[in-house]
């Protein structure tokens, strides 16, 4: 009797276990609610020739970016992006949270609301993740004043304006203790970005944007005023042939960035302009020129100091939407210190998983 009862218990347990496994995965845990996951990898091999110091060369993982996105519940959608990249001057890698934000799903009247850590919508380039850069490095003008992607914590509200063309206005408030403002200050920084699109023909469009970011000035700058602002203008023209899949396509883009300072004679500023052309199914060619003029006495937080002129040219082979090989030559000329360097870079870029489409 004891054996019979024991056998029945074991049998019932086996049946229950079988039923449990059949309703889930092999591990017994459903994966149907997992977020969409993608990884972008960027490797580069670089040779840098300096005019007054020894040459540099090397091969490295430029960045690996992990992107998770999913609807949280009926009210929110989440977006989390981690980036792994080499630490400056070290053999080790660091990981940082580029974005961790939620978007409200039910905001009425065509508004959108974002909370968390996100790329601040300033201009055109600062919102791009590294794998979407048109050239291997960000323009010096963007890097000097905004860093390599201005990822900050705050809240962002976007509304569409009732005008005949497509027009979005975004306003946001972020932590003021960022690299570009005062690291020690607890005050908030505020900003706005206006984005306007016009269809010229079916195949060609023009985008015009304006940006403003204002926050607490760093201590070094207190002598002049306690608050500082950065303004920016951007314009992008695109033409994409619609008659052929992967047919010819042209992009011409330009951006101007200027921190607002009192001293008119020494106002820092920067700009860049680039053009990219798809001349064959898988082949792109690009050229960019840019300048940053930034005096360390005036603007100590800038990453690049002095008057730097950059010129870059690249050739990209993209055999599919998910991988690309890029060869680039870049010349940086620091006119104040008379230092210049020439970079030859090969970059390999891949994407795996379900990566969301990039904005137009």
């Amino acid at each position, binding site marked *: 009797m004891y054996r019979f009862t024991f056998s029945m218990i074991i049998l019932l347990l086996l049946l229950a276990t079988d039923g449990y496994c059949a309703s889930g995965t092999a591990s017994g845990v459903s994966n149907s609610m997992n977020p969409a996951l993608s990884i972008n990898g960027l490797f580069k091999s670089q040779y840098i020739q300096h005019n007054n110091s020894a040459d540099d060369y090397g091969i490295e993982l430029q960045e690996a970016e992990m992107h998770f996105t999913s609807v949280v519940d009926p009210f929110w959608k989440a977006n989390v992006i981690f980036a792994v990249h080499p630490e400056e001057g070290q053999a080790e890698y660091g990981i940082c949270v580029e974005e961790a934000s939620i978007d409200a799903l039910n*905001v009425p009247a065509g508004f959108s609301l974002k909370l968390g850590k996100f790329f601040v919508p300033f201009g055109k380039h600062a919102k791009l993740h590294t794998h979407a850069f048109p050239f291997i490095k960000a323009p010096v003008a963007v890097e000097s004043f905004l860093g390599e992607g201005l990822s900050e914590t705050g809240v962002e509200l976007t509304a569409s304006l009732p005008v005949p063309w497509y027009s979005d206005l975004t306003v946001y408030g972020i932590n003021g203790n960022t690299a570009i403002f005062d690291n020690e200050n607890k005050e908030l920084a505020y900003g706005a970005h206006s984005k306007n699109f016009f269809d010229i023909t079916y195949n060609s469009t023009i985008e015009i944007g304006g940006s403003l970011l204002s926050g607490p000035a760093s201590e070094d700058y207190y002598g002049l005023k306690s608050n500082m602002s950065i303004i920016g203008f951007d314009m992008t023209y695109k033409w994409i042939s619609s008659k052929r899949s992967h047919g010819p396509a042209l992009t011409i883009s330009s951006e101007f960035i200027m921190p607002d300072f009192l001293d008119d004679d020494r106002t820092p500023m920067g700009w860049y302009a680039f053009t990219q052309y798809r001349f064959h199914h898988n082949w792109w060619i690009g050229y960019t020129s840019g300048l940053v003029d930034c005096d360390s006495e005036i603007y100590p937080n800038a990453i690049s100091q002095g008057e730097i002129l950059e010129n870059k040219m690249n050739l990209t082979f993209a055999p599919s939407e*998910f991988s690309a090989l890029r060869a680039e030559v870049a010349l940086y000329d620091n006119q104040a210190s008379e230092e210049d360097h020439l970079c030859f870079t090969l970059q390999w870029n891949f994407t795996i998983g379900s990566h969301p489409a990039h904005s137009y």
Partner: protein
Amino acid sequence: MSRNILVITALMLLVLTLPGISTAKLKVVATLNDLGWIAEQVGGDDVEVSVLCPPHQDPHYLPAKPSLAKKLKKADLLLYNGLELEIGWLPLLIETARNPKIKPGSRGELECADALEHILDVPTGHVDRSKGDIHPLGNPHFLLDPRNGVKVALLIAERMSELDIDAAERYKQRADMFQASVEKRLPEWEALLSASRNCPVIVYHQHWEYLLNWLDIQTIGSIEHRPGISPSPRHTKDIINLGRSQKCVYIIAATWDNLKIAKKASERMDAPLIILPGATGAMEGAEGYLGLFDYICKELSRGGVDGVRNE
């Protein structure tokens, strides 16, 4: 005096409400021209239809221009093909549009592939991108079988009726009329291509599987070996050899395909290249969904029997 003010105020309010009255039509946005055309037939005067992807554009690669998102902002109903045909651009446009009526899962969005009972080319076994930019849910070009167009029309009528109950009967009537007009033409199109039955053909991209399956024409290979990837010289050579050995009767390509490679294969294979409209209105003479099949069947019958090129 106060009466005048009341009258003027009433008139102003009436004028202000007029646009609301005139735009009471159901605003429908279709991703593809074929869907837009079918929606117009089903919706008639009760709907206002606009289309995102123009007929001459490859629907896999539509640039997600914000002006397209603007069209979606006021949509009551979004009709899309589905089976991930629009995956590269539609989610972004929906997000940019910020229109709660058409967000995924709402009654204002309709995946037209839901009308199908049988989906072709559903990949079996292991699926990854070594096979190119494949559609893991199956071949999405089902609108190139007119019988599927009918199923889609009936589904659209059903959804339009849910959203605009007052016009429900009219939607059903128009969908039935559309069904009758397609079914009347089917024997005519099939008869036109009866001589091509079981003939071996090569396609550039697997865009034509539903069309050829309906007409009993046999696809023996595709120039684009893996979807979305340019064919390698080796594969092009292999496909030319295959075409020669199997006596391929013609090659079919869409207007947006890489016609240089298709022409080269056609010359080497000594099989005519037939360039067909991939969607309603993609070529002159292929206007309207029925006109699309008139054009395609006429061109295929000429190419298959007489060996006439339409380049």
